[in-house]
Structures are given as structure tokens and as C-alpha cells.
């Protein structure tokens, strides 16, 4: 049987526990809109009497009040990990879709100002020369359209190349950010382990750490493992980026321009071991795909368009005769067959090989050039085939790839949305619930205070009124 003063202690434990629970509720309400905050719950344990009897120490079994044994973080670890993975996939898809839509914008098709329109006006220029082979205005205009076409290809290649460079720069800054975040997570892990071993509840530190992990997972697709000491390990591509209080660093190496990307791809490696990280998720994964696959592939398709143009035009040009009677010399520089450097070498309008007839000799034996336009007419047949077809094919492929990326993003967004809702549902603060708790704890506190005053009056009766 407990003593009267012992019972006061039990009432005190109740008052303290309820007040602590009220504080926790207050903290929940205060953080109801804090990003990454996980709601907390007070866990009460009844303090029982000793159930193992001894000679002079026997419990009556009623117990000695309440103890606030734990402050729980109501987080669903599984959901948290799933949210991280899906977020990583989403930002990966987002980054790939962004790359494709940037490429689309740089081509401006279908429209009146794209490369296709330039190709069409070049072929039509040949018809004007065919109609009037002796007219230097038509020839000059043709060379002008050829120069705009070459410039159009140069500009398109240039915008792919600058897109590559800016993607590379943003990859570099994301990797730097990842390295910094990993260091921060390791520091938080250290603080959490220290606090836990001292018997504290470092829930807010854990929230901060989980927020950083969420950021890492969308940047590089990180996965996690929770340890018993309260720390969390972070893995990238199967290797530990953060292990307890230790963080490793990542470095980028490889190509620095789009034309090196196929031979020397950009790669991400661990600074300490030099081992390559095989990650296909997060923004980093998306940017690596853009740098090593997407942009180089479109750059090389554009080069195909340019080289087909140079080859076919120069061959047809060589089959004809120009206005001086000589066989046609190359129209485009045969040594420059890439979209980035294609250039018109023909500067003399008379050099356009419109005729398929060699010059004839007049009565005095002087050569007379032919004003035949049939060689120029043959160029018109290139319209819609060759370079035109290669370019169209490339644009259509770009369109379908970009469309499919957009659809994937939309699907992934709804997946992430759903997980976000589930996460909010498990870890988020519900104000109605907190206010209900508030009333519960308040009433319990009031009742404990009442209990204390009852005890007080019992003792008063015993001490002041008995045997007086």
C-alpha cells in the first residue's frame, strides 16, 4: 500500500506529463505548415508498482502515476523512401523533357522561318535560275538563299552546342550542391546519434535531415537506410554517399563540348576511389542522358542533313556547266560537311552550273556557252528528298520523343502527387486533431490538479482535524 505523500508524487507526474503533452501539441500546431515537419505524439506509460515481491517491499499493484516515455515521430519510413524514389524519377523525367523541349524551341518547326523553309527557298532559287540562266540577278539571289541556308544550319548547330554547354554547367552546380548536402546530412547524423545516446528526442534534427535527403533524391535519385542509432545512410547507385557521420564526394569528368560527347562521355565518379557512378535517376541522371545521348544524337542528325546537302548539291553542280563554260565547281565547301561549319564557297554568280550542255564553238572557233537551264532544273527534284527528308525525319523523331517524355512526366506527376498525399496523411499535422488533443490534455491536467487538491484536503483532514 502506497503512502499519502507517494500519491502526491503520482499526481505530480500526471501534471508534468500532461503539460509536456500540451507542449508537444503546441509544437505540432506551430509547425502545421512547416515544410518537412513530421507530427509528434506523446507516448504515456503508466508507472506500475513492483510486481516482484520482496520481504519488506510489496506493491499494492496500483502504481505510481504516469511517465512520458517517448516523443514519437509519426513517420511512415516506407512511404518516405517510396516518395524519395518517385521524386527522383520525376525530376529525372522532368529534366529529360526540358532538354527535348529546348531542342524543339531552337528549331522553330513547323513554321515559316525554320530550316525547312530555307531549304525550300533554296531549291526554288534554282528554278528561277533555270528560267533565266543568263540573268545574274537570279544567280546572285540563289547564292544568297544558299548562304541563309548555311547560316541557318550553323545557328541550329550553335544552339544545340550552347544548350549542351549550359546543361553541363547546371550539372556541375547540381553535383556541387549534392556534395554540400551530403556533408550537411553527415553532420546532422552525428548530432542525432549524440542526442539519442544522451536520451533526448532530436525529432527536429531528423526532420531537417529528411528534408535534405528528399532534396538529394530529386537531385541524384538517392536511396536511404535507417540505422538503429537514429542515423540514416544515403546511397547513390548502390554505394554510400553518406554513411553515418561520414560523407563522400562526387566529381565530374569527360567531354567539355558537344562534339566530344560521343568519344569521351561526361561521367560522374567518386572522388576517393575514382569509380564511376551508374545512376539513372534524378536531375543528374537526366542531365547525363541529355549530355551523352540526346543532344549529341540530334547534333549528329543535323550533321547528316548538312553533309547530304553538301554532297548532293556539289555532285549535281559538278555535272553541269557554269556561265563561263567551265564544269561546275563546288557550291558548298566540300571540306566542311558539319552543320556547325557548312559554308558556301561559290561567290561568283557566273559559277552557278545551270547548263548541262558544254559550250559550243562558233564559226570563228570561239566558244559559245549554252543558256540551257536543265541542270538547274534537276536541283528542284531534291526538294522533299535527301536533306529535306533527313531533316523532316529528325524533327518528327524529336516531336515524338518529346511528346512521350511529356506524357511520362504527367503520369509520374500523378504518382508523386498520390504519394505526397499519403505522406501528408501519415506525417502531416491535422489541426482538428491537434485541437481535440488540446482539449483532452487540458481536461486531464485539470483533473490531475483536482486530484492534487483532493489529496491536499485529505491530508488537511488527517493532520489538522484528527485527534485535535
Amino acid at each position, binding site marked *: 500500500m502506497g503512502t499519502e505523500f507517494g500519491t502526491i508524487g503520482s499526481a505530480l507526474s500526471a501534471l508534468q506529463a500532461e503539460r509536456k503533452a500540451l507542449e508537444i501539441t503546441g509544437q505540432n500546431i506551430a509547425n502545421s505548415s512547416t515544410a518537412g515537419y513530421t507530427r509528434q505524439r506523446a507516448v504515456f506509460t503508466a508507472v506500475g508498482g513492483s510486481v516482484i515481491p520482496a520481504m519488506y517491499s510489496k506493491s499494492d499493484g496500483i502504481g505510481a502515476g504516469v511517465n512520458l516515455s517517448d516523443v514519437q515521430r509519426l513517420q511512415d519510413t516506407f512511404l518516405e523512401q517510396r516518395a524519395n524514389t518517385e521524386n527522383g524519377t520525376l525530376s529525372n523525367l522532368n529534366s529529360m523533357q526540358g532538354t527535348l523541349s529546348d531542342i524543339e524551341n531552337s528549331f522553330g518547326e513547323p513554321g515559316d522561318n525554320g530550316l525547312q523553309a530555307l531549304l525550300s527557298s533554296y531549291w526554288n532559287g534554282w528554278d528561277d535560275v533555270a*528560267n*533565266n540562266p543568263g540573268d545574274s540577278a537570279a544567280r546572285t539571289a540563289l547564292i544568297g538563299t544558299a548562304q541563309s541556308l548555311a547560316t541557318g544550319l550553323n545557328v541550329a548547330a550553335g544552339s544545340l552546342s550552347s544548350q549542351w554547354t549550359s546543361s553541363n554547367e547546371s550539372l556541375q552546380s547540381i553535383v556541387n550542391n549534392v556534395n554540400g548536402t551530403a556533408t550537411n546530412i553527415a553532420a546532422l547524423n552525428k548530432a542525432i546519434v549524440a542526442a539519442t545516446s544522451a536520451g533526448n528526442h532530436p525529432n527536429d534534427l531528423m526532420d531537417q535531415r529528411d528534408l535534405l535527403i528528399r532534396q538529394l533524391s530529386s537531385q541524384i535519385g538517392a536511396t536511404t537506410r535507417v540505422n538503429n542509432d537514429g542515423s540514416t545512410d544515403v546511397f547513390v547507385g548502390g554505394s554510400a554517399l553518406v554513411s553515418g557521420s561520414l560523407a563522400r564526394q562526387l566529381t565530374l569528368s569527360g567531354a567539355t563540348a558537344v562534339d566530344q560527347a560521343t568519344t569521351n562521355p561526361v561521367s560522374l565518379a567518386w572522388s576517393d576511389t575514382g569509380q564511376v557512378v551508374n545512376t539513372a535517376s534524378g536531375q543528374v541522371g537526366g542531365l547525363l542522358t541529355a549530355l551523352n545521348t540526346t543532344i549529341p544524337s540530334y547534333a549528329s542528325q543535323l550533321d547528316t542533313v548538312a553533309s547530304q546537302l553538301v554532297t548532293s548539291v556539289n555532285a549535281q553542280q559538278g555535272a553541269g556547266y557554269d556561265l563561263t563554260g567551265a564544269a561546275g565547281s563546288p557550291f558548298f565547301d566540300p571540306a566542311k560537311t558539319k552543320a556547325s561549319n557548312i559554308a558556301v564557297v561559290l561567290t561568283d554568280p557566273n559559277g552557278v552550273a545551270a547548263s548541262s550542255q558544254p559550250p559550243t564553238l562558233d564559226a570563228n572557233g570561239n566558244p559559245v556557252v549554252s543558256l540551257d537551264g536543265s541542270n538547274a532544273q534537276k536541283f*528542284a*527534284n531534291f526538294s522533299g528528298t535527301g536533306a529535306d527528308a533527313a531533316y523532316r525525319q529528325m524533327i518528327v523523331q524529336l516531336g515524338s520523343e518529346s*511528346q512521350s517524355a511529356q506524357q511520362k512526366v504527367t503520369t509520374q506527376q500523378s504518382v508523386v502527387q498520390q504519394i505526397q498525399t499519403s505522406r501528408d496523411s501519415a506525417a502531416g499535422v491535422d489541426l482538428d486533431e491537434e485541437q481535440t488533443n488540446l482539449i483532452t490534455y487540458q481536461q486531464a491536467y485539470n483533473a490531475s490538479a483536482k486530484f492534487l487538491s483532493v489529496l491536499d484536503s485529505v491530508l488537511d483532514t488527517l493532520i489538522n482535524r484528527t485527534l485535535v
Partner: protein
Amino acid sequence: MSMRVTQNAVTTAMLAGLQTNKQQLSQLQLQLSSGRQLSKPSDDPVGTDQAMRYRTELARANQYQRNGNDGLAWLGTADGALQSGVAILNRLRVLTTQAANTGASDANARTAISAEIDSLKSDMLGLANTTYLGRPIFGGTTSLNAAYVQDPSSGVVSYQGDTGAVTRTVGSNATVQVNVNAKDAFGPPGNDIFTMFDQILGDLKNNPSNLTNDLNGIQTSLDRMTSAQSIEGAAYNRITNMINLAGTHADTLTGNLSDVENVDTAKAATELTMQQVSYQASLAAMSKVLQLSLTDFLR
């Protein structure tokens, strides 16, 4: 397990819904203001393929019309020249007949007729050297500035052009020859219309009895010239047909292109109204739901 519904979850879900609505709204507004439903390849990859083909074909169809019109101008010039040529030959026939009937008796009359025929010959030379944009239309593909040249001392006219064809592309793989060869219009070199003129002029002077035979030569030249005219006429018709065809094709292509690229305004406007209604509804719901909390009912 029933799901806990928290304030944040409600807000996030509603915000996501609002954003979807707003996105669709802005997409429709963009389509309506730009008038295009296909502004980048990913909007419709198949449509992009079609649009690009239509655009290439359209550019060609317009060029075919341009080529055809240029060909018609050439043919018009040639037709005018040949018509005048026929008139000259008719006058030559009248004069030669006159000379054949009366010329033998009157040397003065023959001199007068001879002078007129001489000027007819130089008219004919002018016609044969008719140019279109500086190019002799009966000279084949020569780059010289005249098809026939007259020797200043002997007065003999000879052909210096070639037999090349001048063609215009008026359709996919359809080319039409717009020039007639000089030998088809004026006779083969050495036995052409100018040789005939020289023959008549010679006969007038030295052998008036042969003038009756010369009338046959005039008839042959006339036949040649009218048949050249009909060749030009056939080419004219063919080009006109092809221009009309290219025009119709261009109209069809423009229509097709518009179907693929441009927005159906009535449809988009209706969708916009519907989208506005649903956006308003979600706004209204959001403003109502988020007002409520237990706080309102606790004292």
C-alpha cells in the same frame, strides 16, 4: 485503414487541381490567341510530319506557277513574232504574185516590188531575232544576243543559234518545252526563209519567169510558220492547264496545312468556356472548404 485527411493534404490536392485547370485554361488561351494548335513538333508529331510535307509541296506548287507564268510570257512573245511572220509572208505572196503576173513586162514595177521585198526580209530578220529578257527566243540555248546574223557585205543571213530546248518545270517531273527550233519555224539552215527571200529577190532581177515557182516556196514557209504557231499554242495550253492544276493543288495544300496547324476557333472557344466554368468551380470550392476548422466551434 481510412486515410487521415490533414489541412496540408487538402491544400496540396486542391492546389494541384487548380493548377491543372489553370494549365488547360492557359493552353486554350494560347491556342486561341496564336491561332495555332501545332506550335511545336511534340504537339502532334504525325501532324508535324504532314505539315512539313505540305509546306514543302506548297513551296513547290507556288514555284511551278511562277515557272509556268514565265513560260507563258515567253510563249506570248513567240506567238506575237510568228503572227507577224505570217502577215509578212502573206504580203510577200501578194507581191510575188503581182510580180509574176506583171513584173515581166515592167522593169520599174519590179524594182519597186524588189525594194519592198527587201524591207520585208529585214522585217523577217528582226522577227527571227525577237528576244525575251535579252535572250533570242528562236536561238535555242545560245548565249549570243541574236539567232540570225546578216553578213553586211553579201546580205546573206545565217543561223548562229543552236537546237537546244528551253523548258519550264510546271509540275513534279513535268517539263514543257517553250521554244520552237529555228529550223521548224524558219526552215533548215541553207534552205531557210532567208534563202527563199534571196531567191525571190534574185529572180525578180534576173529570172522573172521563175517567180511562179517561188510561190510554192512561200507556201512551204507559211505552212512551217503556222505549224510552229500551233506547237507554241499547244505548249501554251499545256502550261495554262498545269498552272491551274498547281493553283488548285496549292489551295488544297493550304487548306490541309490549316487543318493540321491551325486551331478550330469555334471548338477552342467552347472548350475555353467549359474550362473557365470548371476553374471557377474549383476556386469557389477552395474558398469554402479551407475556411472551416474546429477553431470556429471551440470556445
